[in-house]
């Protein structure tokens, strides 16, 4: 796919150069002139035609492992990248993904066996970030409004904008995307997360570099970035001003969100403590811009002046109301994937547990169903990447032995879990299998039931 893009770009560039060249020779004036591609090619020598033919053939060659556009159409989640998924209240699966500078939304009424044609969210192409830590997010509310957020890369220099769009007609069309960061600065606004509370407040959180810029202007040092957020109280029609949560966050990790009461949220993020220690902080945010109960959530002592590209995962316990957390670290105290449960009342992590200390393990994701806690992550054994699962039936005090849900010997995305009222689904994209959406816990679902 990437090779195709490169060759396609190369081909278009070659045409542009020749077009300019020809205009110059014929008219003596160096200006752009619209010209039909076929006409252009036919006017050239046989050599040029041969060169173009080779290039064209190269661009249409599809390797066996790539998505099949003839079967699935030009856009599909199998051919796209970094999908996120959610169920609406009627049990319809909605997903969003990125393909060729567009964010798309599609739905499925048979749990991912088949998907509707994809609807484009951003009609004008833009560089929507799509890597493990950066993916579009999707939420559907009780009135069937569909909300989508993503990060638009605005240059290779870590700059970006937090983008948002919604559909109020059941996913037929999407509104023109809006930028949520309100500083109008050409700087870093990235790693956004989206969350809708029971009260209907929609939070967008992200990593923001406006304070770094301000400090540079003043000639002062500033470590990392900051965490900011905005809230919509009217189903995404408008958003509040941007509120700062904390200075000196890590600049390259996703933020985890879980509810804290009907309208507040708890967020967990990688924070710089002291000069270079990149452990985790936790705080509660309110719809009117207040940050409360900020605390330190992990003590790993990872002293590093680098980008881990490893954000945490967090869900609220249905049993205790505390917060299940999982994260990656390579600190002096802990190394690997860890679990702990955080209590705001005690303001400390408890039952700290090493999930996987082996090299290559990372990107944990938590979910709870029927009073059982599930944790999936990706590991690598030297040959294959494996999606592993462990469970806890006592609120994270003890854990089952791990089992492997899926594996691949090709490139793959981070694993995610999607909740439904009757179980949990693995959401995982890989080069080998395309998009995998399958139930791994809960009540039976035909043949795909695994428990």
């Amino acid at each position: 796919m990437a090779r195709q893009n490169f060759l396609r770009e190369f081909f278009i560039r070659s045409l542009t150069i020749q077009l300019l060249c020809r205009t110059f020779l014929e008219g003596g004036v160096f200006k752009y002139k619209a010209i039909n591609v076929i006409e252009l090619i036919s006017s050239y020598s046989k050599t040029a035609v041969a060169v173009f033919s080779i290039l064209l053939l190269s661009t249409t060659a599809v390797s066996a492992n790539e998505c099949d556009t003839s079967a699935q159409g030009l856009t599909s989640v199998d051919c796209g990248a970094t999908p996120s998924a959610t169920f609406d209240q009627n049990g319809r699966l909605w997903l969003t993904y990125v393909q060729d500078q567009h964010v798309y939304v599609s739905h499925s009424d048979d749990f991912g066996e088949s998907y509707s044609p994809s609807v484009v969210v951003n009609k004008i192409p833009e560089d929507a970030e799509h890597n493990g830590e950066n993916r579009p997010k999707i939420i559907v509310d009780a009135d069937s409004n569909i909300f989508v957020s993503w990060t638009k890369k605005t240059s290779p220099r870590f700059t970006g904008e937090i983008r948002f769009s919604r559909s109020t007609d059941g996913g037929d069309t999407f509104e023109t995307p809006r930028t949520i960061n309100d500083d109008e600065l050409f700087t870093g606004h990235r790693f956004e997360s989206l969350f809708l509370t029971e009260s209907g407040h929609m939070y967008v959180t992200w990593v923001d570099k406006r304070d770094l810029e301000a400090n540079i202007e003043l000639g002062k040092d500033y470590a990392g970035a900051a965490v900011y957020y905005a809230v919509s109280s009217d189903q995404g029609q408008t958003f509040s001003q941007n509120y700062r949560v904390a200075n000196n966050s890590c600049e390259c990790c996703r933020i985890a969100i879980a509810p804290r009461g009907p309208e507040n949220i708890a967020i967990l993020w990688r924070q710089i403590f002291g000069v270079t220690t990149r452990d985790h902080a936790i705080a509660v945010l309110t719809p009117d811009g207040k940050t409360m109960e900020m605390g330190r959530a992990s003590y790993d002592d990872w002293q590093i002046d680098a980008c881990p590209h490893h954000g945490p995962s967090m869900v609220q316990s249905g049993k205790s109301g505390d917060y299940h957390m999982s994260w990656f670290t390579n600190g002096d105290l802990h190394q690997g994937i860890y679990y702990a449960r955080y209590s705001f009342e005690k303001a400390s992590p408890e039952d700290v547990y090493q999930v996987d200390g082996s090299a290559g393990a990372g990107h944990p994701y938590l979910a709870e169903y029927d009073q059982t806690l599930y944790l999936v992550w990706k590991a690598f054994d030297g040959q294959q990447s494996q999606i592993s699962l462990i469970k806890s039936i006592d609120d994270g005090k003890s854990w089952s032995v791990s089992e492997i849900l899926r594996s691949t010997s090709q490139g793959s995305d981070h694993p995610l879990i999607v909740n439904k009222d009757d179980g949990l689904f693995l959401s995982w994209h890989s080069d080998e299998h395309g998009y995998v959406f399958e139930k791994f816990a809960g009540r039976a679902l035909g043949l795909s039931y695994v428990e």
Partner: protein
Amino acid sequence: MLNSSLFQRTKCLDFCVASLLVLFSVAAQADNFKAFTADSFQEIKSSYEGEEFLLGLWSVDCPPCLVELEFMGKLLELNPNLPYVLVSTDPIEQREYSQEFLEDFGLTEMESWMFADSFVEKLRFSIDANWYGELPRSYFFDNEHEMKSHSGIISRELLSDWFSSSLKFQ
């Protein structure tokens, strides 16, 4: 006259196409990047057999890498023969972005590789099973290719400690 003009124009077009083909090849090799696959690390090590060298892993998506590249660019001005190999963990299809960075820091002449397989876990593993992907990441190999590693921005102290010959610093 007309025929002559047409002939000249055709010649010009042919010249244009020929120039273009040259331009193609120049454009295709406008940077130094080589495709880093699962065998590349061994290839790099073999090419430095019996010699010490520094391997620097970086990405355009890593702000601290920028600080390191700037530092290394200045260091190489003062120590042009420093054996330094750059490996970008960004996909090689994004070579233009990466090239912009190297241009800014005067590092375009260095031996440079970019990840050329979406199975990045395998590429990382081929370098070091104990590297989790954090960036920047540096590896130093002495004359006998004993390896030392560091996560985070490389420091003057570390380089002085690693290299057997003394380095010039600003």
